[in-house]
């Protein structure tokens, strides 16, 4: 019996691996880019939620915005490939996101500097005056 089990296991594994490898070599559709952008987003969220240094939090926020940009661009390419050649509002939107991200980073860092001057720290869990 164990022989059958082993054989079945082996078979399953090989089919799994082969399917995986096939997948790897398949042409990449829009979903792959979406998955990638989501993973970037997830990493960014993780950074925002768990780092102590405010600067790194800001950088994580840039990551998140980037993930969104990737999303837009992926879909623009998708629609263009589908036949709607003139659909380029995605790119425009990305431009605006970049602009906004820049502006936001500027303001945020300005606040950070002011905060640093007052509290002499950039650790976010030490800036808790609003704590009950």
């Amino acid at each position, binding site marked *: 019996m164990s022989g059958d089990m082993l054989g079945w296991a082996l078979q399953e594994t090989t089919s799994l691996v082969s399917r995986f490898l096939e997948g790897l070599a398949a042409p990449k559709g829009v979903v792959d880019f979406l998955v990638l952008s989501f993973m970037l987003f997830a990493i960014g*969220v993780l950074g*925002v*939620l*768990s780092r102590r240094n405010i600067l790194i*939090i800001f950088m994580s926020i840039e990551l998140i915005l980037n993930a969104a940009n990737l999303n837009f661009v992926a879909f623009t390419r998708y629609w263009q490939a589908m036949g709607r050649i003139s659909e380029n509002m995605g790119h425009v939107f990305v431009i605006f996101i970049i602009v906004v991200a820049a502006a936001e980073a500027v303001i945020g860092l300005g606040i950070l500097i002011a905060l640093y001057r007052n509290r002499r720290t950039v650790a*976010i*869990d030490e*800036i*808790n*005056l*609003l*704590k*009950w």
Partner: protein
Amino acid sequence: MLKMIWLIPALPFLSALFLGIFGRTMKLSERTISWIACGSVFLSLVLSVGAVYEFATSYWPTHGRPYLSSEAGGFPHSFTWVPGGEARVIFGPEAGKTVPLRIEWSYQLDQLSAVMILVVTFVGFWIHVFSIGYMRGDGGFYRFFAQMNLFMFMMLVLVMASNFLMMFVGWEGVGLCSYLLIGYYFHWNYAAYASKKAFIVNRVGDFGFLLAMFAIFSLFGTLHFTEVMELARSDAYLPSESFGAWGLASWIALGLFIGATGKSAQIPLYVWLPDAMAGPTPVSALIHAATMVTAGVYMVTRANVIFQKSPTMMFVIALVGVATAIWAASMGFTQTDIKKVLAYSTISQLGYMFLACGVGAFAAGIFHLYTHAFFKALMFLGAGSVIIALHHEMDMRRMGGLARFMPVTYRTFLVGWLAICGIPLFSGFFSKDEILWRTFSTDVIPGGRWLWMLGFLGAGMTAFYMTRLVALTFWGDPRFVVAGGSGTTHGHEAHAIHGVRESPRVMTIPLIVLAIGAAISGFVGWPKSLGGTNRFERWLEPVIWHPAQEDAVPAKLSGMEASVAEHHVAEYLLMLASVALAVGVMYTCATLYLRRRDRLEAIVRAIRPLYVASANKYWVDEFYEGVFVRRLVLGLSWFSWRADARGVDGGVNGSAVMTVFWSKVSGWFDLYVVDFLVNAIGAMTKLFSTLFRIAQTGFAQNYALVITTGLFLLTALYLILSW
């Protein structure tokens, strides 16, 4: 002047009102008060004289009926006092008819009320003047005069009333003033007691009066004198009764007489008068000698038509009158308080007046009222003068020999004494003998001779106790101790005489005036037997009903004249007998009290039981007290106590208990319910805040985490829903 008769009661009333309201606050001087008080009475006197004169000379000859002030118009002459509703006549020929109970407040001036207002205002005025001196220095000067003036008003209303109800107002009003004035020294327990007694005993009589008034209205349908007396004459309304019979007329007469008994101190309601001496002496003079107590006699005379319809009641009245006369006189023998002797004397003389009314000699009764007012007021004022001079000493045992010290008082008192004893030419002689003669010769009721005998006896008793009074007070040797002296009472020694002197002129002048009155006032009643025309009786003729004369045939005139001549002899004899008795008794009494004291004491020892009984007023007061008063008072007080202790206190305590209980409940409620709710809200807030503030970490990443979690949940929800 006749039109102004409404002022006669109004002036004293206004004066009383003014003095009563403003006397204390304005701090008027005694002088001002005296002028206002006496002035108003004087003006009333002047108006009375004028009105009576005009009535006699011009009104009566032209109209031949009493003057009613309603003839002069509306207010203030007269006004509709009780507009009244429908009432039903119950008895008599008009039984079942509805009549309006409409009472007018109007004044009636006829011969009878004329006599009364003259007596009241004249004697009242002089007593007011006397009071200026008597009440000098008293703190309640204004109050005294206010109440005296109020009394004058009430008395004048009584005698000038045109109907029974208005008369009753005056009746009650004088009772009220009597109460106020007897209780003038209200801090003195005895005075308060006496005033209460006077008022309550009076009220007992008033009950009878009221019942009689109801009966009169139920029979005649009206209360106005003129109308009632008019209708009462006819047999249709009020059938004449024969002696011994008892009918409607007797009932009404009984009710009226009970009222008179209370007011005029006859048996059995006389007990208040001796105690009324607790008031100031002018009060005793005015109210309890000259005026208020005579209101009963006036009322009986006013309603004489009704009384004459019931010979049974007339007999009762005469009997009660003469019995009272003797009864009171017997008590005068032993009294030691000078005023009490005079009080009993008053009761006794009032008995004579009722005796007169009882035998049909109403005019004689009024005549005696008129003369009695003079000499009794005179003697009371004289006693007042003595009392003041001896610094409020009233016990005769501590007086004596005052003739030397107070000549004017003494001489005027003598005039009164002679008058009351019935010495000829003094006023008392004429009136008293008229009464005695008419009693003897009456044909209205039987037993006139016997009644005469009792009256005769009473006259002798009168002479005795009055002489006793004079002897003890003015004759003999002084026995008095002046206040502030050595303080010991010796038998017959002279002590510290220098304090006693004659009273001031403001007091002696009234004495003189009244003495003149007591001397000459009898002349208007000079009897026919002595050659006179008895103007007094003729004056009152229109007021008195003479049923017998209406039946008399004019042709019998000569017979009447003859019988009159025949009667004169008897009258002379009676007159002589009275005088002789009086003189004899006076002489004997003077001798006993001045020279033969030992004889006196022997007599007293011999009749000791009688003496003790008389001195103790025959224990009548004690009897009343025990049988009626105690029961009534105790019963009422027990009842009131119970009502108060159980009911009122129960209610009060109950409400207190309720309040306490309710407050406890409220407190509990407040503590456990309200506070609970309030605290609960607070606790709730605390609880929730404790819960919710956990979220306020001040830690920005927490907030980010929460946002992300929310995002995640939403997405999950979406995914699940669209799966």
